[in-house]
């Protein structure tokens, strides 16, 4: 079976409940810039992967593995994978 290329985005976010200094710092900075209506900010990683696979499902499965093995730290992070988009 022939492979084709897919693009998949992954969001890796700090586990809820962990102190989020980055989010807090940005919230503070936004307030001081006049964005008073901001309630909260959370920052994670947005990783865009282009990979080849026989189909979208297998592309996603392989990205799931990448997250488990390398991209996310299971102690501190959660991840979510968006659907594969054919290129």
């Amino acid at each position, binding site marked *: 079976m022939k492979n084709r290329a897919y693009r998949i985005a992954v969001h890796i976010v700090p586990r809820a409940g962990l*102190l989020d*200094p980055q989010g807090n710092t940005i919230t503070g900075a936004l307030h001081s810039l006049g964005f008073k209506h901001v309630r909260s900010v959370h920052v994670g990683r947005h990783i865009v992967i282009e990979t080849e696979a026989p189909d979208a499902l297998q592309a996603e499965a392989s990205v799931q593995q990448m997250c488990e093995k390398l*991209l996310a*730290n299971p*102690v501190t992070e959660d991840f979510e994978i968006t659907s594969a988009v054919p290129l």
Partner: protein
Amino acid sequence: MKFGIVTFPGSNCDYDAYRAVVDELGAEATYLWHKTEDLEGVDVVVLPGGFSYGDYLRAGAIARFSPIMREVVAHAGRGGPVLAICNGFQIACEAGLLPGALVRNAGMRFVSEAVYLSVENEGTMFTSQYEKDAVLRIPIAHGEGRYVADATTLARLEDNGQVVFRYCDAGGSATGEANPNGSMRGIAGIVSAEGNVLGMMPHPERAVDSLLGPADGKLLFESLLARVAV
């Protein structure tokens, strides 16, 4: 007794550890290249500081897959001592040699300065030469040194005496102000449950020569030497 200092591609404190062991302790040391799978019969493995793979993604995340890490894990499994400093600590956590994780400093900035540490457990193979409740002055230099773990892990670490070093002030009190990176419970260094893997963010290998400042890290290396001498 022989120290094996692992060189990952972006390690940069491997040299400091080597010089500390050889010049200041008069012990034997060798560099272990990360692509090899041979520990060359060393007694103590040092995972040194630095930026193993640029610390891209997360500090230590990529290095733990280096070929040599399998051997390091096996060595630790046999009860062999592993001293994991700074980036080494991050790698050890990523590799599951130690519980928890090291994330970005609470102040978000890289912090380079000399801090005070209290020796919380002088009964480990890394701290036997320190006095009880000793307060040490040792440099830190890191951007991702905030130790985090879940509540159960933290409780277990405390109960088992696995918290070996805590950030403190000059008088030995672990105040919030003395904590340079927001680590949970001011934790600066922990040992594994078996006591043979020490991970710490401060750099004892930079504190062995009084020309450069307090030599408070020297006893850590001497503790290891004393253990094998027994």
